[in-house]
């Protein structure tokens, strides 16, 4: 087990190297840099000053040199300084990480709370009215583009009905650490979390439904019935556990995706998380933030696969890692 994990972590090193090269040069290939755009058109700045600044920041060095400097700093945990916000990227990300984490966890929990029972019911009572309703819901949520759905949700529940705040993660002036503060955060969180879950439940429901339908017909289920096991136990003990295997396989990705941020949801709900930061940084050519965020989500994806393998080996004896 430890050997396996260690080996997998070692394999990550070349993967991360390739990723870093790609990220760096693709980001470099974006037209313009931090000194184009608004700054360039500022009449108070002469073109010489900008050129000097470029030289000072090392933006004129050959790409290879810039890359080496960047990677060297990465090893020290130094992700660089944001050109736009003028603070350490690590600080910037740290300040947004908590928000993203809360939103991610909320979406994840809601997704599983909604989709596991629905998937099981849908599979168990296949072709019933209930099943058709649930399947109809999954088609609807699958066909709805997230950004349109999120906009509608903001419009209806935020602006029209006024039940939920339309942006931010907490109101100004609420004392951190108090119960009100917690409730206030939760209030801000609910709408984006539901919007995210509405879409992410689709895959889980359909996977689970198909698995239950498949597993129901397996021979070992017949064996269980032939032992005189009551129908409810046949489901809970035999069918359910076998049907949840593929869901467990995705859990690793889901867990790490919690930290990667949700681009659409955060942008539309004006929720200050990593996804929103990422989008802003791209439009503002905040090079160091973009590369840092892509590197982090790449690392998370790799850890996600490892986690998935470990989780699967816990729940399925056939692929136990020795």
């Amino acid at each position: 087990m430890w050997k396996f994990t260690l080996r997998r972590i070692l394999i990550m090193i070349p993967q991360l190297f390739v990723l870093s090269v790609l990220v760096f040069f693709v980001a470099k290939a974006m037209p313009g840099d931090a000194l184009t755009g608004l700054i360039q058109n500022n009449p108070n700045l002469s073109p010489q000053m900008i050129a000097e600044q470029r030289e000072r920041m090392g933006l004129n060095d050959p790409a290879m040199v810039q890359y080496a400097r960047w990677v060297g700093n990465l090893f020290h945990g130094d992700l660089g300084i944001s050109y736009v916000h003028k603070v350490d990227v690590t600080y910037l990300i740290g300040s947004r990480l908590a928000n993203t984490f809360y939103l991610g966890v909320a979406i994840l929990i809601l997704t599983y709370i909604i989709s596991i029972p629905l998937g099981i019911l849908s599979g168990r009572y296949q072709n019933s009215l209930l099943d058709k309703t649930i399947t109809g819901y999954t088609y609807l949520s699958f066909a709805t583009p997230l950004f349109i759905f999120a906009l509608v949700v903001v419009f209806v529940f935020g602006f029209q009905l006024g039940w939920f705040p339309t942006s931010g993660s907490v109101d100004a002036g609420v004392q951190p650490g108090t119960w009100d503060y917690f409730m206030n955060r939760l209030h801000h969180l609910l709408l984006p979390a539901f919007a995210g879950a509405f879409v992410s439940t689709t895959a889980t429901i359909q996977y689970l439904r198909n698995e239950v339908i498949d597993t129901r017909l397996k021979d070992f289920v017949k064996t269980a019935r032939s032992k005189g096991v009551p129908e409810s136990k046949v489901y809970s003990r035999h069918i359910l556990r076998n049907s949840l295997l593929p869901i467990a396989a995705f859990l690793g990705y889901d867990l790490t995706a919690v930290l990667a941020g949700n681009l659409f949801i955060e942008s539309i709900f004006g929720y200050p998380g990593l996804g929103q930061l990422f989008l802003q940084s791209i439009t503002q050519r905040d090079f160091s933030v973009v590369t840092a965020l892509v590197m982090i989500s790449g690392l998370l994806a790799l850890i996600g696969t490892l986690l998935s393998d470990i989780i699967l080996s816990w729940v399925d004896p056939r692929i136990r890692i020795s």
Partner: protein
Amino acid sequence: MNTEPVLQIKGLTVSFRIRDQYYPAVDQLDLTINKNEVLAIVGESGCGKSALALSLTRLHDSKNTRIEGELLFKGQDLNKLSPGQMNKIRGSEIGMIFQDPLTALNPLMTIGRQIEENLDYHTSLSKKEKTKLIYELLEHVNIVNPQRVYEQYPHELSGGMRQRVMIAIAIACRPSLIIADEPTTALDVTIQSQILDLLKQLQSETEAGIVLITHDLGVVAEMADRVVVMYAGEVVEIASVYELFNNPLHPYTRSLLASMPAANAEQDQLHVIQGRVPSLQNIPRGTCRFSERIPWIPQTAHAEQPTLNEVGTEHWVRCTCYQHFHFEDEGKEHVLDGIAGAK
């Protein structure tokens, strides 16, 4: 021989729904299974033998299956029991063994747990007693290291071992009836005979009745006391195993025997039965169902609405066509020579 009946089947009809119509896969079947008897049910794929086996414990999907008739078991009609009452009988009074041991065990549960589950619902033993009993059961089915196998998962065992585990599950509560649905089909030949020996041995110890579903006449010859030949949902011949192999009468039985490879046969080609088993919707009902596969026999030889006729002691044959039957490529005078296995 003791002929106390364990299960009496009366007018059993098992119909499956195809779209909105029910089609009987087992049609008006009467049969008695006695204590301490191995009753073999043979026939081609699709003749209704598995449908029959599953209906005995009502394991079919109830939404698409209709079971009519009586299943008299120990004085009660199984077909009238509630699902809860049926569950009390499944696994305790009637044990089942299925065809493919590779898929018949839950891959996520230890062997010990899977046997224990049976005991959970039918005994009031303590955890310790159950474990002890499971060790004994595993030993009983000739598993060498019960303590180890108890902790193992199905994928860690060979096919033969898994079938032994299945048998251990089936006999855990000492059932008076064991239904074995093609128990050796998925195993290789050497393992097959071990499993059959084991079944035989267990039967003689427990005096249970065994319903053995198979398409392998070799297995029948080795195991059975009595044989039921099924075709297209009907019984076409019932006889003792000795009688059946020495004096097969129904054209279908004779064709089956003729298509069995015999080690000492001089012929180099096996007999092939023309045509195929009709699909559920296309079974010719009300006439001799086998007639369309022996078209060289004149229609007048068949009875209308053929019934089972008693032709000897405990020997029953359906329809009258057996009196006029001969194989297509031989003259009538060679009828008896046509049976490769019987000579």
